[in-house]
């Protein structure tokens, strides 16, 4: 523990010294007498030894969902008496205090162990470590204090609350494995597609007897098979716009978690590319384990500033399977991301851009030149969105007032009327 002096220690010592010297100078014993209690306090105060302290932290869970409340218990034990011990559990960003006192000052007798219950609230998604306890002890005089830090960190993952989606995006192309998405191709499946004349090799159960009776020759039903799709969530982590506690990146991660949950529930294979200062990727896969992998990867992703130029070539090829539906979540603030998305579209990927709007984070200004600059910036962004749309890429805006469901509806509306632009 680190020993430090209270401001009173120096003040009392200096005052005593000055009073003693003045007493000599003025030949007044009263001043020496006046200094005596200060000198006595200083002499007693500096004798405090470092108190032997121990602390533990227990948290009832290591995984939670946004809005959950967790129970934490900070236990402290002192082998010698401590008149005032300040105990503070360091709470990472996104974790708040729902109930209890933190930091709190307690009194401990020799050998006493005290449990301090706290209730923590998971305010927003995070991948954090909880368990750093700050201790500050002082004796009754309080002129000297000992400060220390006990590291009992344990991981705590707070998953974003996924938004409930009624409908997801239909991919342009499906994959070969079975899923919940009705494929555009024809084959064995449930959904009726069309009828055609019977050819040798067709199964008798496929014969459409009513059409056969009408036409006088054998007619069979064709069906759409149920397939799954490869979906890649493309998360832009180059730049973000943020206010004090909210930013486009938080919003993007929350939307990405919603999409991951929705697509995996549809039995699609979902992968992740976090494209930014640090490139992270996860190959497409399905199932509950993949869901946790993806959300864990999302939680560990952060906005990393970088000057390094990056393009699509740095992404491993297997992460972007041919025909995959690429859903990009980006504030469209970094040119590298914009060019990478254009490149992906050029390589034939079925691309959707969900623009996490940085507009709500623009601070309004009364300066006319600032207002003109803001208008120009907005025009540039509108032009950028139109550029994507000319390439056949649906762009929908996500902001605090727009749900992922609403943004996807915008994408679906665009894709209904832009089929010719697809490759």
């Amino acid at each position, binding site marked *: 523990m680190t020993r430090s002096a209270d401001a009173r220690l120096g003040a009392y010592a200096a005052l005593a010294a000055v009073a003693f010297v003045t007493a000599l100078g003025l*030949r007044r014993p009263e*001043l*020496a007498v*006046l200094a*005596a*209690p200060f*000198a006595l306090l200083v*002499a007693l105060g500096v004798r405090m030894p470092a108190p032997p302290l121990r602390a533990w932290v227990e948290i009832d869970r290591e995984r939670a969902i946004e809005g959950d409340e967790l129970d934490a218990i900070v236990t402290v034990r002192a082998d010698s008496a401590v008149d*005032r011990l300040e105990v503070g559990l360091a709470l990472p960003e996104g974790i708040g205090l729902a109930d209890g006192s933190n930091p709190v000052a307690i009194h401990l007798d020799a050998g006493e162990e005290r449990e301090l219950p706290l209730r923590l609230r998971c305010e927003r998604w995070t991948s954090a470590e909880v368990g750093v306890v700050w201790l500050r002890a002082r004796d009754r005089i309080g002129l000297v204090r000992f400060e220390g830090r006990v590291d009992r960190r344990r991981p705590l993952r707070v998953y974003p609350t996924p938004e409930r989606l009624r409908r997801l995006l239909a991919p342009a192309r499906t994959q070969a494995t079975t899923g919940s998405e009705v494929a555009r191709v024809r084959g064995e499946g449930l959904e009726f597609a069309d009828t055609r004349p019977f050819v040798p090799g067709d199964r008798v159960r496929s014969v459409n007897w009513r059409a056969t009776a009408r036409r006088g020759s054998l007619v069979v039903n064709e069906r759409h098979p149920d397939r799954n799709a490869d979906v890649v969530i493309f998360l832009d982590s180059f730049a973000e716009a943020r206010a004090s506690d909210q930013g486009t990146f938080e919003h993007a991660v929350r939307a990405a978690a919603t999409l991951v949950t929705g697509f995996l529930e549809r039995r699609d294979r979902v992968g992740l590319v976090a494209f930014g200062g640090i490139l992270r990727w996860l190959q497409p896969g399905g199932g509950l384990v993949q869901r946790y992998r993806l959300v864990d990867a999302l939680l560990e992703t952060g906005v990393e500033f970088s000057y390094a130029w990056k393009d699509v070539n740095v992404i491993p090829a297997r992460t972007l399977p041919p025909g995959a539906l690429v859903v990009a979540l980006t504030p469209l603030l970094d040119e590298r991301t914009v060019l990478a998305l254009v490149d992906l579209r050029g390589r034939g990927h079925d691309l959707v851009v969900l623009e996490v709007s940085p507009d709500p984070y623009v601070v309004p200004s009364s300066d006319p030149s600032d207002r003109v600059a803001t208008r120009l910036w907005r025009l540039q962004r509108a032009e950028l969105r139109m550029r994507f749309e000319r390439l056949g890429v649906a762009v929908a805006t996500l902001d605090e007032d727009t749900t992922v469901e609403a943004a996807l509806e915008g994408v679906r509306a665009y894709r209904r009327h832009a089929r010719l632009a697809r490759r």
Partner: protein
Amino acid sequence: MALGLAVWLALVASDDAAPVVLALGVVGALLTAAAVVWPALLFLALAVAGSGYAALLAIDEPPLDVRVAGVAACLLVVGELVGWARELWSTTRDEPGGEWRRPTWIALVGAGGLLLVWGLLAIVDLARVEGLAVEAVGAACALAALLVVRRLARG
């Protein structure tokens, strides 16, 4: 408290000393208020507040002044109150039942200081007839102060 000390000293001082004592006391009180925010000013605050009393002694030249007990107790309580104010200002809250520990301690310090100074005054009064005794006490006290400062510097 510091302002009360200044007013009290100005009231008991002679007409010549009262303005000086009051001025120094008021400045000391203002510095005390500032010391709650900037604790480095605490020494200056106590020194200026105490210098009002030193001025009173220098100008009025009373025989052995017993009011020093009250001055010492006041200055001690002022110093402790500044420390307590800073604690209350922090985000740390005392556990239920612990709020009275500090005011009780401050009251004890004030009363203890008062008794200590009275006791020392009694000793000084006994030795006052011997001029050398005063010199010896002063020198011993100065030496003690130097030792404390040296120990602090080492710590």
